[in-house]
């Protein structure tokens, strides 16, 4: 059931980001919607289940974007590793404030990886100014909305788990 949820969520977020968002001028500088999902995988799901989705999402986004191949893969992989590392060191999975910080840091990490690559492509003096503004807006959006996404992902996952458990229990009784 969780694989079904992960696939649906991936597909929904990718489509939302590449089609619907472009019609909403207010969200022009919105952050990458898949970051909260990667953070959710890092915080709430086991590595064996999450890692294929981290790579799958990185692969899909690399191909849909004009970025050099591997950029999204790199960003998502290291973000996932960082979140897993943090949760193993500290018990923070349920603290809203810390979760907010993790999502904001995730947005920051992804943008820094992108900027590093853009600098390799060719240094641009104006880039620094543009980037500071864009990253600030993205981080603020992430602080404001990131935890909402995480809460929604967790709630849906819980409901799906409960539903599947009920189905298995009913099957068990019948047999």
């Amino acid at each position, binding site marked *: 059931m969780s694989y079904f949820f992960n696939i649906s969520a991936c597909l929904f977020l990718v489509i939302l980001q590449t089609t619907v*968002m472009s019609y909403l001028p207010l969200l022009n500088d919105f952050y990458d919607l898949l970051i909260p999902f990667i953070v959710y995988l890092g915080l709430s799901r086991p590595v064996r289940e999450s890692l294929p989705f981290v790579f799958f999402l990185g692969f899909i986004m690399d191909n849909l974007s*004009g970025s050099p*191949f591997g950029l999204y893969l790199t960003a998502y992989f290291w973000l996932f590793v960082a979140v897993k590392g943090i949760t193993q060191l500290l018990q923070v999975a349920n603290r809203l404030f810390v979760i907010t910080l993790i999502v904001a840091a995730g947005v920051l990490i992804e943008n820094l990886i992108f900027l590093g690559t853009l600098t390799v492509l060719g240094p641009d003096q104006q880039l620094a100014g543009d980037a500071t503004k864009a990253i600030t807006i993205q981080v603020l959006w992430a602080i404001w909305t990131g935890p909402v996404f995480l809460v929604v992902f967790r709630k849906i996952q819980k409901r799906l788990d409960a539903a599947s458990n009920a189905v298995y229990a009913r099957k068990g009784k019948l047999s």
Partner: protein
Amino acid sequence: MVLIVGVIVLIAVNIIVLSVNSRRYTSFGLERVAISFISPFQELVTRSIRFTKDIWFQYFALVTIAKENRTLRTLLNHASEKSNLWRETDMANARLRNLLDFQKNIAELVVAAEVIGKDPSAWFKTVIIDKGKADGLIKGLPVVMPQGIAGQVIEVANHYSKVMLIIDRNSAVDALVQRTRARGVLKGKSTDQCRLDYVLRKKDVRVGDIVVSSGLDGIYPKGLRIGLVSEVVDHDADIFHDVILTPFVDFEKLEEVLVVLDIQKHEFVSRK
């Protein structure tokens, strides 16, 4: 200890792979699978949004249409007078078009496509269109709009393609200032403006000049409009002008584009 060494090695390998990939746009062939997988959904959602948008705007149009009708009737009388004059001009225009055989050529060489998805990243400017290999598209074809150049095809799946817009940082177009024929290389800035690099200081470039494609890059046909010069800055120590350009195409509202097919291949096919 082993874990730390492992992480360091992984980071090193990652940086090397990324730097190699960043030097130029690399294609692994797997892109087609990803595009073909996601693009049907993008197409479905985009079409649904446009359908809803159309219904919404049509409702408001109906409300205002009665008011407009009265105004338009008055305007129509004035317009009929002018229309006779324009008809004459139109006929002259048609004769000239026939002379150049321009319309026939364009009709044969372009494929109209709809934009169904945009780049997920704010740092890169590409779009997904609903035409692909099956429609005769190949990598490197120029994509244009009636207003000017839009970009070039960089990845082709069976029914979908990825187009890099001229405002992308990786894009470069060999261009000319129409008035003075000063040559330069147009580069994207991933904003709504571009830079015209390597225009020599001794060449005359002014704000408001039109910039067109030179055709020397082997991708874009010569003479296609690109944009207007919006800023020219000259630094004392520099041998080039610092030229900022505003493209004619509004990339925020990009919905339909025209892909110019390979001219040589097209002629070869039609001859066969």
